[in-house]
């Protein structure tokens, strides 16, 4: 069974169709990347998989390990193994990152039939996983994402991913706003989490990130559809030539 299977997905927001029949299948252990120009629907896809209800799915299906996600609330999807690393992580003043994360970890553990982590077990896990992205654990006493630098926010997202141990990880432009060092650290944190069971969907504008997180499959998303699929060399070709040539080819083919 495939890990993630999206078939003929149509979705719109405020009556405007954004996704127009998208198909995508990810097998366990694979890293897929979706590239595409601004407005092609990349972030929409990520947020629809995670369950943001501002979008309406008008047609199609999304299955995770054979289970339909579309009828699930966002928290249920997370409990089933979806993780979305946000492009713009939300600041939540007054709630410490640790408290929030302990709540999240234990909600997910409860769903998986595991006991709640006690304070000791939780802190041990925090220490281990924070090291993966070189995140200062002291930062976790601060309110969620508040006062974090751009790089800290993105590292915190990958750290949370490590804490929640999802099966399907979606990275929405995790590279945006990162300098080269931060990019390297974030990528290392992601690579640490690659496993034969886990799948990744890496959404990005630039090939640069894919030099660190090497994908098995690269897709080009254009106007709500995947118009081209290839290996990691497709990303290099896009970097060199831009999206214009694909747009032209698609227009000719249509």
């Amino acid at each position: 069974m495939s890990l993630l299977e999206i078939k003929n997905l149509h979705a719109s927001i405020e009556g405007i169709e954004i996704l127009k029949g998208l198909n995508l299948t990810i097998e366990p252990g694979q890293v897929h990347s979706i590239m595409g120009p601004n407005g092609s629907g990349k972030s929409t896809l990520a947020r629809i998989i995670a369950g943001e209800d501002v979008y309406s799915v008008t047609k199609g299906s999304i299955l995770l390990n054979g289970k339909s996600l579309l009828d699930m609330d966002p928290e249920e999807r997370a409990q089933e193994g979806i993780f979305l690393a946000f492009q713009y992580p939300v600041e939540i003043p007054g709630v410490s990152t640790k408290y929030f994360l302990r709540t999240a970890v234990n909600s997910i553990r409860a769903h998986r039939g595991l006991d709640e982590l006690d304070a000791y077990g939780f802190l041990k896990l925090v220490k281990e996983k924070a090291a993966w992205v070189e995140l200062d654990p002291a930062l976790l006493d601060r309110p969620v994402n508040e006062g974090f630098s751009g790089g800290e926010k993105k590292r915190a997202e990958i750290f949370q991913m490590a804490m929640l141990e999802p099966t399907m990880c979606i990275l929405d432009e995790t590279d945006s706003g990162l300098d080269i060092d931060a990019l390297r650290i974030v990528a290392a944190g992601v690579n640490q989490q690659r496993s034969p069971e886990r799948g990744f969907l890496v959404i990005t504008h630039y090939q640069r990130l894919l030099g660190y997180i090497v994908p098995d499959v690269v897709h080009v998303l254009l106007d709500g559809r995947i118009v081209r699929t290839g290996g990691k060399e497709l990303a290099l070709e896009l970097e060199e030539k831009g999206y214009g040539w694909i747009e032209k080819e698609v227009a000719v083919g249509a």
Partner: protein
Amino acid sequence: MCTQTIDNAFPLCDAIEALALQSMSEQRHAACKRLHELGWPTKRNEAFRYCTLKELAETKWKIGPVTTADQTALNGLAIDGTDVRLVFVNGRFDATASSPLPDGVRLLGPMLNETEIDRVANFTDDTFAQLATATTEDGVLVEVADNQAISEPIHIVHLSAPESDPSTSTLRVIIRLGENARACVLETWAGNGPCLVTPMTEVELAEGAHCNHARLVEHGDDVWHMGAIASKQAARSTFESVVLTIGGKTIRTLAHASLDGEGAHAAMRGFGIGDDHRHIDSRLRVAHMAPNCTSREIFKHLLPDHSTAAFTARIYVNEGAHGTDAVQTSRNLLLSDTAKAWSCPQLEIYADDVKCTHGATTGEIDPGGLFYLRARGVPEDTARALLAWAFASEVINEVPVPSLRTHLARRILAQLPGAEKLDEGVVSL
């Protein structure tokens, strides 16, 4: 005057007049007279336009009976690590339930010395402030000499305990700090109704004095709480005040701060949680009378059900009060379609070179924050409770005394909509 006569409240009027006669106090007589002139306010009175006082005006109030504190009610109100507690029931001191008085703290009453009261408070047009002066039985005077400090928070608990009739009570708290003196006072207003309580606190700070004051309102839901706080500050003094409302029917707080000396600082904070038809009304006035004073006002309300909140605040900058720096913020989070909030910031400025800003927002739980939490596996009801706590904590976290902060945070948490989804660990910041 847009008023309803107070004479329809015969038992109360008779009792007030008896008190006035008994005390031979000029002030009490004057307040009594003024009370009759003012009557019960109606909605047509601008200062009460958001309050619905019809039921209050139609009630036959009596002065609260002499009784003692209910020990079970008291137990739940204690602040961890604070031994000093003064208990008042229906406006009268309960010695048995109270701790010994620390140095610098005196009791006033039963008949207040009139040179002590209304030195700072000047609410001549406010029915409830007049009612407070006319009916005061006991009071507390916290007086700290120059360069001295009362290190422990002084906890003043007022319980309303009516017998069969609806009753009124009041308590006068006077805080008077000498030069560079320090004190911290927490008032807890609790107990059941039907009651009308009129708390009155007066704060007088000499140069460089530092006062922390908190008022925690946790009455039962049939209590009208019509309170006032008046403060007067000399140069470089600091007044940190917070009013937290987690109980009561209609809770109105009139707070007037006068920054009389150069470089004085006043912080006035408020946080309230609505419930059912509760109405929380805050009317503030900060007067910058001298140069280079700073003031911060932040009032926030979390409003479920049919609850309502009104915030009316004026910053007054006197001629010559240059270098004034005043910030005023009002934020409301509506948790239902039937909750309502009004914000009315006002500036009155007669000086140049001043910085006065105000901001007011009223909204719902942020869908972006909600999605973020849920996308991490946090169930929706827990996520909503977390965001409600996030909203509350901003005010709580600014309370400068740690033991007080923890106490207030716990009390708030206990009343927060959805709090059963959270545990005490959330109070860690």
